[in-house]
């Protein structure tokens, strides 16, 4: 009694590794140097992403990893993949992550409350499963997969980009269409979640309608006069004066008008010119 998946897995593990033949491509010195620079950088980025305290710093470390991977692709004769990695992952996806993180704010710390029951157990199980998969595939890649190299793909039939396009739209068309369906579904879902219905409310007015409405209601069309700051005194309590010299009621700030006048006595004295004024004594440095 065994599950079919286990059968497949056991067969997979029981396979004899085929003899390794990798003479198609040789690693040039430049490539080796680039790998030993970019590899540690990518690893450092990944570790930094895990251990950074700040969410935005974490995202930035991840950007370092993605950029390193992109450059590695370019060096390994896949320039298109490398630049697409930078444009799509670094430029768009991580930017959206940053966008959300910035909206959330810099002071929000991680929540330690478990909202899903059995979260840790599930995480541990999935983590172990993922580790097994990774070890299996990497092990297989190192032992039994033949390195074919991209030399042929990059030179024949339209080169790198042309070959990726051909593969994508012939052999992997279904997977490609499924992915696009997934993305469209996600986009639609996001739109529905974010949509604020206007049911029952009138349609949004255009700018022209708003302007006409403002003029028809007979409100003041221009802006209200500001306080008379800088005219006679450097205080917002100073009212603006109309052409006939009277105080413009619209320029008065209601908070200041509601304030007890004794708290503003300094300002009043300054405006009236009755406060302390510098005189010739000020030149001597001390009053005598």
């Amino acid at each position, binding site marked *: 009694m065994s599950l079919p998946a286990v059968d497949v897995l056991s067969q997979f593990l029981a396979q004899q590794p085929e003899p390794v033949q990798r003479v198609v491509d040789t690693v040039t010195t430049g490539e080796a140097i680039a790998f030993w620079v970019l590899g540690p950088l990518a690893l450092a980025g990944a570790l930094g992403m895990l251990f950074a305290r700040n969410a935005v710093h974490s995202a930035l470390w991840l950007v370092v990893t993605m950029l390193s991977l992109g450059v590695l692709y370019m060096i390994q004769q896949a320039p298109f993949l490398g630049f697409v990695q930078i444009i799509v992952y670094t430029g768009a996806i991580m930017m959206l992550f940053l966008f959300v993180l910035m*909206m959330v704010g810099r002071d929000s710390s991680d929540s330690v409350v478990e909202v899903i029951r059995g979260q840790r157990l599930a995480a541990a199980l999935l983590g172990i499963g993922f580790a097994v998969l990774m070890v299996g595939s990497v092990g297989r890649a190192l032992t039994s997969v033949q390195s074919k190299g991209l030399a042929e793909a990059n030179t024949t039939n339209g080169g790198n980009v042309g070959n990726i396009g051909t593969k994508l739209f012939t052999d992997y068309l279904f997977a490609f269409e499924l992915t696009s369906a997934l993305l469209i579904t996600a986009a639609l879902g996001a739109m529905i979640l974010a949509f604020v219905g206007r049911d029952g409310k009138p349609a949004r007015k255009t700018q022209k309608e708003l302007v006409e409405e403002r003029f028809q209601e007979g409100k003041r069309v221009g802006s209200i006069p500001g306080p008379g700051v800088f005219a006679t005194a450097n205080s917002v309590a100073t009212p603006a004066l109309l052409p006939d010299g009277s105080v413009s009621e619209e320029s008065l700030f209601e908070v200041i008008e509601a304030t007890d006048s004794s708290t503003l006595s300094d300002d009043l004295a300054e405006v009236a010119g009755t406060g302390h004024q510098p005189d010739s004594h000020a030149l001597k440095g001390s009053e005598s």
Partner: protein
Amino acid sequence: MTKNFAAEIGDTAKLLADDPIWLVLIKVVGIFAFLVVMTLFMINWERKVVARMQHRPGPNRVGPNGWLQSLADGLKLAFKEDIRPVLADKWVFFLAPVISCIPAFLAFSVIPLAGEVNMFGQQTALQLVDLPVGVLVVLACSSIGVYGIVLSGWASGSPYPLLGALRSAAQVISYEIAMGLSIVAVIMFTGSMSTGDIVGAQASTVLGFAPGWFGLLLFPSFAIYVVSMVGETNRAPFDLPEAESELVGGFHTEYSSLKFALFFLAEYVNMVTVSALATTLFLGGYHAPWSGDFLNTGWWGLLWFIIKTLAFLFLFIWLRGTLPRLRYDQFMKLGWKVLVPTSLVWIMAVAVIRTGAIQQLSTAQRLIALGVVVGLVLLVSFLLPDKKVQDTKGVPLAGSGFPVPPLDLAVPKSAPKRKVKVANIPKDTAAVTTGKEAE
């Protein structure tokens, strides 16, 4: 690696493949110097042109005719106090201007400044590298450059820069889509993403006289690119991330001294880069407007390239001097609801035309295809709802205290005309007027 690409690479890449290291270094320094000088020149030129448009003299004190003003400003900026806000994130605040500056310079490495030239006895092309995916390099650099703006806004730790950064992120992501789509048509026509090949494909003439530039052949793509390049560089009328009247200075409000200078430099270098890319993709790069001439060879290419790039830069200045800033929702609507759909439809059309040209269709087949397209357009136009016609005759209701006649105003009939002639009026009624004569 060059050996593996041998069958695929274009002529420019072959020319560049055997450049010695010293020549590459000279080109790197040359490009850097070109961009910095262009920045200094652009700042001055912009101030002078905008001043001229506004009937004022503009900078005219430092150097001959004021042309050294930006150099003096730059030097002064370097010696100013470098202020870091208390709430700022130390490292990110420092890194952000650098991140915005480096990709701006990097993007210029794939721009072909001129064709085959002789530099110090070495046959080479006036271009640093010619990658098979050259156009993507510019897109990638611009998408990295946004990090500088976004991080500067976040790291400043104050609200206005944060708002500017959020706007900028949304803006650049939206307009990058339109920009990428506008480039697609060019790539479809050229069959290559290398900038050298794209310029090479525009060398011929169409109809015997007109230059075969993609700006003429693919005009909708060109228009979309020009709009999105202004959006991508955060310039007026799309300068929402640093809208002075709304956000103080936007993302660079808290920056001063050299860090601010770096942002300034990045903005202008980005402008030069997108203008140069527009020249490369749509205006035939370093080719003269006519073909097959002495003026179309060697170093003369640099002249044509610079003239075309300057024309785009002048467009930037002109826009800034003319148009008011868009509202944010209008700006987003333009990007997503006009530029992107137009681009998609246009790419479809180009693909169909290209397929028709490649497949060597017969005239009947072409006519059928044309008929199908026209039928589809008609169908769509029938399905579109009619525009609501507004009643323009109605008198606007006014509550503003101005004397406006009521809506149901019935105009009274004019007074009945005299039936009796003046001469026949009896004397006694005309006594008042004739009394004097009687005396």
